């Protein structure tokens, strides 16, 4: 048997391999210097991610390459998503540096877990088979469970981690169960062969749809869509803010990749069925996310519900690829790229919003209540303006990137004939506008309760400013990012 072993082409997986090797180095460096020079661990982590970015850029040739017996794919979409993921993780590390140091949370494990979670996301993004998908997902999730509980003193953090773990394990189980059903019906784990087997029509439809339901449930859990959203508010609330920022940004990209690979690459033959499921979940997410966010007084919880609604809007794009069971390549690319664009835009806004929470927090003080934003315009007009940009962008008001993201998915949805759904979605975004407006109201119309000067470091300030300007800049000139998303998707379908 061993004679049949063929050495796989490792080249497409170079960034993953690099990250894995570097993580050992990080481990060693932290072991030796960690106690006294934690900054070296942090530095090395950032260097690792930058190295991954460089490798991804250099090896990106726009071709779709399959390796590891068709279990791993390297295409333009994966390159793009990975680059955004590195960016999001690096931003999170910079945003969170001081916050973690103040609370003694910048342990060596933190950086290592972040690296492994990133590795998991990269594997998810490049997965071309159920098996790699599941491996990546578990690597990411297990690292995230650990990160949520990184503050061992915090009861809320531990509880959140527990909840996340139990529900996450359940979702993984469902996903695995669904995958096994589909494997049973099609005889393959590779997404390409699964799709082919379905088109040939030899497989049992009932088993397939049965499996599909579980797969969709698993995907919905990772995206955090109603009714699989229960973990989101508690985890967002319970985790240390830097970790919340991490969970609220890069994993959304990985979850998007998972949804796209599983549903579009693998199970497209069942699109008519999964579109209906996504439709219901999208409407419920938009509705519940926006309504529940109004009642929150904690900004992390508010952003959690806002995340639920945003993923609902994103899925509006994802479910609009197929019109009346007819495949039109242009419509499909349009719809999926709008969902991709939405995800990237959301990650950018989410990083900025949590960055603001980190900005206002300081040693011994968590600025996680809405009250803490009161009168920010008096304390710092510049950062109040940055938060204003984030909030209006999330509410979908132009000239900010969030508007164009909503615009793109609404266009896709209306094109697919879901005009009524689009009307419902915009009406809920009207309701959603209220709680974003409330944050602006607190910052501008109210007098400060907390009058302590903002002590955040220069790195955070600069990054936050750049983040805010990016949200505004991609809104004034939306063309570039949109074209990148479209091209990445078109060349990879």
């Amino acid at each position, binding site marked *: 048997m061993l004679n049949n072993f063929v050495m796989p082409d490792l080249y497409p997986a170079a960034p993953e391999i690099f990250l894995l090797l570097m993580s050992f180095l990080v481990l060693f460096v932290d072991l030796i210097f960690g106690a006294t020079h934690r900054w070296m661990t942090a530095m090395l982590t950032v260097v690792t991610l930058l190295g991954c970015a460089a490798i991804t850029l250099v090896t990106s040739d726009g071709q779709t390459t399959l390796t590891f017996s068709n279990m791993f794919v390297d295409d333009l979409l994966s390159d793009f998503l990975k680059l955004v993921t590195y960016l999001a993780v690096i931003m999170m590390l910079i945003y969170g540096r001081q916050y973690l140091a103040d609370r003694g949370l910048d342990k060596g494990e933190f950086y290592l877990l972040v690296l492994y979670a990133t590795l998991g996301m990269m594997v998810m993004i490049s997965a071309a088979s159920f098996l790699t998908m599941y491996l990546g997902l578990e690597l990411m999730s297990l690292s995230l469970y650990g990160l949520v509980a990184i503050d061992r003193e915090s009861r809320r953090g531990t509880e959140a981690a527990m909840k996340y773990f139990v529900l996450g394990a359940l979702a993984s189980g469902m996903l695995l169960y669904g995958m096994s059903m589909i494997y049973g019906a099609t005889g393959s784990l590779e997404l390409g062969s699964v799709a082919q087997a379905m088109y040939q029509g030899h497989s049992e439809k009932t088993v397939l749809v049965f499996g599909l339901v579980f797969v969709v449930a698993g995907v919905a859990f990772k995206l955090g869509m109603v009714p699989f959203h229960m973990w989101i508010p508690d985890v967002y609330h319970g985790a240390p803010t830097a970790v919340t920022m991490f969970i609220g940004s890069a994993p959304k990209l990985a979850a998007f990749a998972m949804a796209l690979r599983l549903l579009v690459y693998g199970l497209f033959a069942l699109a008519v069925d999964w579109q209906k499921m996504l439709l219901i979940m999208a409407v419920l997410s938009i509705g519940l996310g926006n309504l529940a966010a109004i009642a929150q007084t904690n900004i992390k919880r508010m952003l959690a519900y806002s995340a639920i609604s945003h993923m609902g809007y994103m899925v509006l794009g994802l479910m609009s690829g197929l019109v009346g069971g007819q495949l039109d390549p242009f419509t499909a690319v349009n719809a999926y790229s709008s969902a991709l664009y939405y995800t990237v835009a959301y990650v950018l806004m989410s990083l900025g919003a949590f960055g603001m929470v980190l900005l206002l927090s300081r040693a011994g003080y968590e600025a996680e209540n809405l009250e803490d934003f009161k009168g920010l315009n008096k304390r710092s007009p510049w950062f109040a303006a940055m938060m204003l940009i984030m909030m209006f962008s999330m509410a979908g008001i132009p000239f900010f990137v969030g508007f164009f993201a909503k615009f793109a998915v609404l*266009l896709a949805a209306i094109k697919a004939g879901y005009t009524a759904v689009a009307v419902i979605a915009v009406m809920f975004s009207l309701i959603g506008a209220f709680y974003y407006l409330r944050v602006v109201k607190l910052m501008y119309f109210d007098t400060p309760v907390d009058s302590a000067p903002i002590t955040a470091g220069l790195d955070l300030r600069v990054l936050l400013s750049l983040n805010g300007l990016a949200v505004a800049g991609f809104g004034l000139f939306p063309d570039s990012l949109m074209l990148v998303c479209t091209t990445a998707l078109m060349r990879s379908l």
Partner: protein
Amino acid sequence: MNSQLLSLAIWVPILGAVPVFAAGSERRCLVRWLALAVAIAGFLVTLPLYTRFDVTQAGMQFVEQAPWITRFNVQYLLGVDGISMPFILLNSFITVMVVLAGWEVIEEKQAQYMGAFLVMSGLMNGIFSALDGVLFYVFFEASLIPMYIIIGVWGGPNRVYAAIKFFLYTLLGSLLMLVALIWLFLESGGSFNILEWHRMPIAMGPQILIFIAFLVSFAVKVPMWPVHTWLPDAHVEAPTGGSVVLAAIALKLGAYGFVRFSLPIVPDASHYLAPLMIALSLTAVVYIGFVALVQADMKKLIAYSSISHMGFVTLGFFIFNAIGVEGALVQMISHGFISAAMFLCVGVMYDRMHSRMIADYGGVVHTMPKFAGLFVFFAMANSGLPATSGFVGEFMVILGAIKANFWMGFAAATTLILGAAYTLWMIKRVVFGAVANDHVAALEDINGREFLVLGLLAACVLAMGLYPFPFTEVMHASVDNLLKHVAVVKLQ
């Protein structure tokens, strides 16, 4: 004909706001003069729009075109015709007045106040000159942000409620418009060009739906009865400058939307639903006129009077004859001057007395004679006195209405009585009579700056009333063209 005039009109105030913000609120003197310089520069760059305007042409002039979002074929497409051009001038002019009006009275965060108005001015120029659906929408909605901040930060005691109500109400309308715009994009085979939409045939069913989507959006903005309730709140709570911009320009956006979108894109639905529109407009004119009569708060009274006057505008549009439409446009500009002046007058008194209640005043003429003269003049204009601009528009719309239907014209004409009643009764109680109390007795007359602002506005009102030709001249060709276009059935 390629020129950058419209881009200048939009971006000079917006980019000019950046140094104003940057100057910070500590350096008040610098902020004021900087803001004034930007506002004047913003006004000066719009002047060539008038002087170089070709009145014989009905089409778009000063057109600028550049790709903006290639994926959806969205263009940075600007252009003005005789309908939209006057509003750009009006807007830029009013901005100068607003900066002057906030010269001393705004004590807190003056840089942000001035900057917000400059941004607002640029955005509104963008609305009036955008010829691309998405570009229009983007300006339309973005202009909510500075107004939200203006009302909320510098407004009265109930400002938070008013600001949020203002924002959500307007957003409600515009979101439906967004869906309609996307529908039109898909139906037209991938174009957001408004002029192409004008030519595109659409079946009756979709026409009516689109009309309703636009109606919700624009009716809230105008505001038409019964979706007007945000306006009195916003006006009462807003600082003087905010009220001025709201009344003079922001309300015109809705009416302008009807002329640019509803009438030419869905003319058949417009004809079909015209009775409804006329009914709503007449309700606004008559019913809101009575509501204005009983107000105790001067700002609220003027706010209701604005709603009533805007009812005239929508009435003029939906009777579909040249004199009606032109009258409505004249009324829009004239109301821009008069309502701005009225709110400024109330602002002048409020700055001194910190009260807007009619009951707190009386005999102002004895202590502020110069001011009283101007105030009475504007009040006369507001009630449609001949030789003021208020008369021209109203008279033309009434003529148009009588042409269409005598009783319609009759109902519309009641405004001449009602308008005179509520405005002059307010004047009688505030300006004339014996000096009501010690506070009034201690009032000081207006200073040079205030006199300059009110005097300029008075000159405009008078000029437009005596010789409206320069205003109507630019509109003629475009209005004729519009009416010809609307008269043609474009069902599929």
